[in-house]
């Protein structure tokens, strides 16, 4: 019998809520496209919600919990190489927040989803009868076709990134017992000699609310300023 492990805070509540809400909404984006043809507004509002979450996460990266801040991301290529080398040698480098590869994955997922949602705003079906993003009317038909083409291919990129992301998390937990997935649920990780920080400081709930309100204003205001009506 080992003594119960001492647990430390790793991810604050807004970061976790963001993560799982985004997961759910990405899943629903696919469902609403595949099965929601009769309710085009479902897919459109699902996209607005994803854009809002992404803007929230970007803002939260500046004022949020210590592990969620971009300043805690080690994105230098040298850091990624050093991390890979250490893993290869079996040194099991542990990070309380994102390890250097995971930081890249977070940024890649956010960028891909932002691009996908952005393209969606300008997309429409070929005949412009079934579904149309709020900004499709502001550009040429060729631009809409271009956006729709990449909106369709963008899903494949997201699927690839998500597959790698899930496979990596499962590999860490099943092969290495890192407890990453549990930590994303409970917010806590077993204490360890972490490379980045020993315990996370949570962001404030007031800041989270402000970030969310700002994200809402930026998304809806942005669409409006670009000449579209998000409530069409």
């Amino acid at each position: 019998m080992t003594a119960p492990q001492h647990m430390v805070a790793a991810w604050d509540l807004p970061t976790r809520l963001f993560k799982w809400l985004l997961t759910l909404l990405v899943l629903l984006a696919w469902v609403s496209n595949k099965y929601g043809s009769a309710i085009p507004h479902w897919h459109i509002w699902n996209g607005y919600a994803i854009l809002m979450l992404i803007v929230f996460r970007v803002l939260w990266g500046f004022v949020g919990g210590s592990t969620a801040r971009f300043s805690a991301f080690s994105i230098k290529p040298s850091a990624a190489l050093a991390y890979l080398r250490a893993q290869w040698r079996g040194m099991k480098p542990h990070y309380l927040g994102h390890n250097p590869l995971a930081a890249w994955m977070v940024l890649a997922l956010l960028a891909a989803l932002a691009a996908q949602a952005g393209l969606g705003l300008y997309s429409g079906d070929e005949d412009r009868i079934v579904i149309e993003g709020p900004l499709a009317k502001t550009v040429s038909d060729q631009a809409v076709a271009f956006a729709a083409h990449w909106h369709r291919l963008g899903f494949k990129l997201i699927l690839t990134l998500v597959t790698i992301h899930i496979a990596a998390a499962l590999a860490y937990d099943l092969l290495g017992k890192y407890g990453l997935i549990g930590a994303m649920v409970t917010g806590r990780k077993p204490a360890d000699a972490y490379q980045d920080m020993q315990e996370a400081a949570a962001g404030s709930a007031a800041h989270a609310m402000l970030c969310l309100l700002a994200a809402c204003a930026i998304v809806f205001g942005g669409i409006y300023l670009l000449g579209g009506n998000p409530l069409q």
Partner: protein
Amino acid sequence: MRKIIIFSICFAIAGAAAIAQGFAQEDPVAARQKLMKSFGAALKPIPDMLKGAAPFDLAVVQKALATIVDGTKELPNLYPEPPKPGEKSRALPKIWEEKARFVGTYEKLGKDAAAALPLITDEASLKANFGKVAGNCKTCHDEFRKPE
């Protein structure tokens, strides 16, 4: 003289039958594309009505739905074989691999359009009932039409 008249009438009937035959044998690819284009043209004004950008026009909506109801009766018969190499068609091989299901999507479209016809009387009922009809277009195109 009588003989000539009777002969001419028979000749004319035969000629008309031959022309009708010729129409019936119109290239099925061209025929289905023409019908599909007529759907697109008939539906085109409706999205603006849904967004409030154009006034609701019952005649336009009813004509569009009738175009679909009529067209979907003919369309299932216009896919006799997969496109030959070089033929200008976006029909995917899946149509002939799952012909029954493909034909079923046209039947559903026709049925949904016919059901919507008496239900749509104003802007609100258009909003409530149009999506179910138009959604069929997307569902089928996503699966059976080659993307651009």
